[in-house]
């Protein structure tokens, strides 16, 4: 769609999905003067100090060379739709503020929507020769609409951060629900491990406070089960916490709103102090990694944060006599979650672990910090409306799906294969991508693969009927 047509309500070439469940009256109330005043706040130290330097740099110095477009899986897989270029939405904003594009309800809605046609995976920023970051612009546009006018997708705001602040988790799970879920997972352990183990909750003075996305316990309970078994064998002192918000490490604010991010981050920062733990151990969740490890650096917190992947790598190597990779004969590939691999540079530990516990490990290409996003990044994976799900499968996640099919090509369809993804969000997207596949490709977290290789495991965690 030509950028000039963005403001034209009669031009139908935008696209067919709508992420923002917001009525036209809301956009009508944003006059050009109001919009300009609000948008200019993004460029003021008093109002936007955290990201100002990079925002100024990208906004003012991007040459619009579009090198970044060649790196963007959404732009490529859409067949080169202009409005999906990484630089396009920044350009819409520029022209609006320079008076070259009309600011009206149509152009405002489309600008807000455009911010949700991006996974904020940062492949574009990696390509830029001057270090401009159009992924940041995406996020700043989302922030502008949310912080000024409360315009944000329900999945991120009403059913996301607000639900987490009120009820303890974006899933709605309250502390009693969490304890009940943990008790249930604990009751399943003897079936797999042969003897009972306690899942520690609210234990004071443990070395690690283990935090996960709460959805992990609901959708992938075997992940916690696997970690409980592994931590017991590795003699790790750990605990979960049933304190409000401590059992849900997600912070959707990172995707769209600084205030919501801060509200949740401050609560999270207090969780470790309550149980007198010195270290917070971050489980298999990409943006919990980024929030806790990178973004929390900006807050005055008194505890260390460690990725479970590093700890697992160290222990699997030390206790290698406990594992037999013959228990994992499946061809397995590794998906690199953007927030863990590209953003934090953590990609070797997962590989080192997998190579010890599986027989047939295969690399997708490209990988590591050069990976492709699963297509569900920046909150898109939890937007489950049918048109958005379709878009995620056909456009945002298409490159990832192609990579997966490529890495397993030549393997007979009947043979069970796995995509290992140490990130809940990626697993949710992979579940959608793989739901109709005819090649028997399944997905899994990392702990399940490791635990499955334990000598003496009574019941396998992988394989079997779906």
């Amino acid at each position, binding site marked *: 769609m030509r950028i000039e047509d963005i403001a034209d309500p009669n031009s139908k070439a935008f696209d067919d999905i709508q992420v923002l469940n917001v009525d036209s009256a809301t956009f009508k109330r944003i006059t050009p003067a109001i919009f300009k005043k609000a948008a200019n706040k993004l460029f003021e130290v008093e109002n936007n100090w955290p990201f100002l330097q990079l925002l100024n740099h990208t906004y003012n110095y991007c040459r619009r060379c579009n090198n970044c477009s060649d790196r963007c899986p959404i732009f490529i897989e859409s067949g080169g739709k202009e409005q999906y270029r990484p630089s396009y939405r920044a350009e819409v904003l520029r022209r609006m503020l320079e008076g070259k594009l009309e600011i009206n309800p149509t152009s405002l809605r489309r600008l807000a929507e455009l911010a949700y046609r991006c996974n904020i995976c940062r492949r574009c920023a990696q390509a830029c020769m001057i270090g401009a970051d159009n992924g940041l612009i995406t996020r700043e546009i989302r922030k502008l609409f949310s912080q000024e006018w409360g315009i944000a997708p329900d999945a991120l705001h009403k059913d996301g951060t607000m639900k987490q602040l009120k009820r303890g*988790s974006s*899933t709605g799970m309250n502390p009693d629900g969490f304890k*009940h879920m943990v008790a249930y997972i604990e009751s399943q352990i003897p079936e797999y491990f042969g003897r009972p183990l306690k899942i520690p909750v609210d234990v004071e003075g443990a070395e690690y406070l283990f935090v996960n*996305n709460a959805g992990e316990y609901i959708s992938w309970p075997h992940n916690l089960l696997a970690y409980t078994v592994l931590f017991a064998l590795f003699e790790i002192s750990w605990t979960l916490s049933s304190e409000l918000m401590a059992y849900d490490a997600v912070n959707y604010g990172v995707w769209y709103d600084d205030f919501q991010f801060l509200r949740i981050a401050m609560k999270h920062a207090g969780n470790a102090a309550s149980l007198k733990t010195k270290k917070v151990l971050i489980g298999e969740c990409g943006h919990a990694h980024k929030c806790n490890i990178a973004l929390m650096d900006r807050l005055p917190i008194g505890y260390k944060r460690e990725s479970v992947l590093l700890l697992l790598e160290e222990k699997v190597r030390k206790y290698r006599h406990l594992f037999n990779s013959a228990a994992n004969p499946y061809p397995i590939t590794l998906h690199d979650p953007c927030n863990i691999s590209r953003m934090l540079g953590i990609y070797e530990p997962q590989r080192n672990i997998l190579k010890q516990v599986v027989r047939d490990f295969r690399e997708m290409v490209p990988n590591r910090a050069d990976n492709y996003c699963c297509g569900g990044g920046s909150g898109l994976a*939890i937007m489950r409306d049918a048109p958005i799900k379709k878009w995620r499968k056909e456009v945002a996640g298409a490159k990832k799906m192609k990579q997966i099919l490529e890495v397993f090509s030549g393997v007979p369809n009947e043979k069970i294969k796995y995509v290992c993804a140490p990130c809940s969000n990626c697993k949710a997207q992979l579940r959608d991508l793989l739901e109709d596949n005819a090649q028997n490709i399944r997905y899994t977290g990392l702990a399940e693969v490791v635990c499955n290789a334990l000598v003496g495991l009574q019941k396998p965690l992988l394989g079997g009927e779906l």
Partner: protein
Amino acid sequence: MDYEKNLGGVFMPSIKVSGKSYTVDDEGYLDPRHRWSHEWAEERAKQLDITLTEEHWRVIVYLRKYTDDYGIAPLVNMVCAELEIPLVRMVEMFGEGPLKNASRIAGLERPTGCI
């Protein structure tokens, strides 16, 4: 299902019960603005080709209580164990992925979060 315009000009499915219109989201869950009722549940079940028996109602009542207490829906294995209903029977009653339809009929809110 009929469709009516919701916020943002998005068409949402709707169901009429006793002349009143109830919106559901596109995954078929009752809009939380509406009050659930037994009557509504019967109507919703009919649309899913399910005739509610006492056995169905045991599951529905359990789901509503669990959600009230814990904020989320239970796992299907929990329901099977607690109510002593085998999984195959749950699938016979509510279809594949039995808790999906059971949750819709029970008027639970749609699942949210990274699940």
